[in-house]
């Protein structure tokens, strides 16, 4: 699944990022606890989270996550967007809640990190 498809499935807005049709996401990971993301995500995953601090971008960088989608209508602060832009990490924002976001992506065939 590409990030562009994720945008479509989640009715998401692109906060920062280009060429989303060329970025492939292999798995999905939904968490607000960054230590869990570090411990259980896989390279190439999409991170769904309700947390919008710069630490989310840092976590994504270390865990080699290819894109972040903020759920339940949360918008990231300027520092987070700036850091993501500098790291070349796309940020999306969906009005959907965490559970629905994960459910929709899963139904469209995106696998979890433990599968």
């Amino acid at each position, binding site marked *: 699944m590409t990030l562009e498809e994720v945008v479509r499935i989640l009715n998401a807005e692109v906060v920062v990022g280009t060429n989303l049709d060329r970025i492939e996401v292999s798995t999905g990971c939904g968490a*607000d606890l960054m230590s*869990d993301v570090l*411990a259980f995500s896989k*390279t190439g995953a999409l991170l769904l989270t309700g947390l919008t*601090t*710069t630490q989310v971008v*840092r*976590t994504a*960088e*270390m865990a080699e996550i290819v894109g972040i989608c903020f759920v339940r209508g949360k918008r990231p602060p300027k520092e987070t967007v700036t850091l993501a832009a500098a790291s070349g990490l796309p940020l999306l924002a969906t009005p959907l809640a965490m559970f629905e976001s994960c459910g929709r992506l899963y139904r469209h065939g995106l696998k979890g990190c433990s599968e």
Partner: protein
Amino acid sequence: MSPDTNLTKTQEMVYEMKVGDVMTSRVISVRSTDRMSQLRGLLRSNRISGLPVVDEDRLVGVISVEDFIKWLADREEDCPIEKRMTAKLQTLFDDDPLVLAIGKFEATGLGRFPVIDRQSGKLVGILTKGDVIEGLLKRLELDYHKEEIHRYRASHIFEDIEADETTLLFEYGVKGQDFEQAGASSSRLRRTLNRLGVRPDVVRRVAIASYEAEMNLVIFTQGGMIRARVQPAKILLEAEDSGPGIADIQKALEPGYSTAPDWVRELGFGAGMGLVNIQRSSDQFEIHSQPGEGTFVRACFFANGEKHDIDRPGAGNRSGSEIGPRQS
């Protein structure tokens, strides 16, 4: 690069590269029985100056824009292409070196050559001067890019250095309570390890451990150091601070045990997984701490990634005896 070396490089390339490497292989062709009047559309819509004439995979001639203009000027009736094409053919084989093609362009003054497969005798492409120039430029760019990567990457450093033991030491200072910069050191270490050509899966594990260690320094201490000792076979990651220290280390290593204040949880940390994650992502792990003195964490990662077993019960080594004496 001086002009001289460039010339030599190009000369080298025209001997090395084959016609088949640069030719256009998606060839638009016509049959000898097609009409001259059909040519106008073909030439215009494809923006080409000539077409090979092919009958059942065999090349029988070439028809060019010049032939077409001449036919128009002669105001003759529509006729099969066969009548106006050039049948005396100059061709190239796909395994001919480029230098031969360049010589042929010069000697004949022709603008294009059909390219034939030497074995089957079938038409496989067409070569224009433009194809030659484009092919050479692409190769130059590719070579230049490779050279840049080589210069940029430091992965050959271990091969270049002569010593019985080589260790590269990278140090990063981490400020306590500075949440804006938290993670920046691990980010820099991660880029450095990538540049050194460390295996990507190992880099990821070191980066994760380093980031957890860095968050611990930022959250709990007044600051400290992160060090990475990189050797050809392994990477030793160390995090050191001067206080406050951990009273009950065994408890701190239990998943979910946390002494972090609530506001740390708002950052997505402080759930008592930091040390657990460092231990889990490393191949060997040790921790020393004295309340009032400080904490020293060391994690070892094998560069070949083989000895790592995340599900091993009691993964890691808490006593630290396997890693060796403490260095600073």
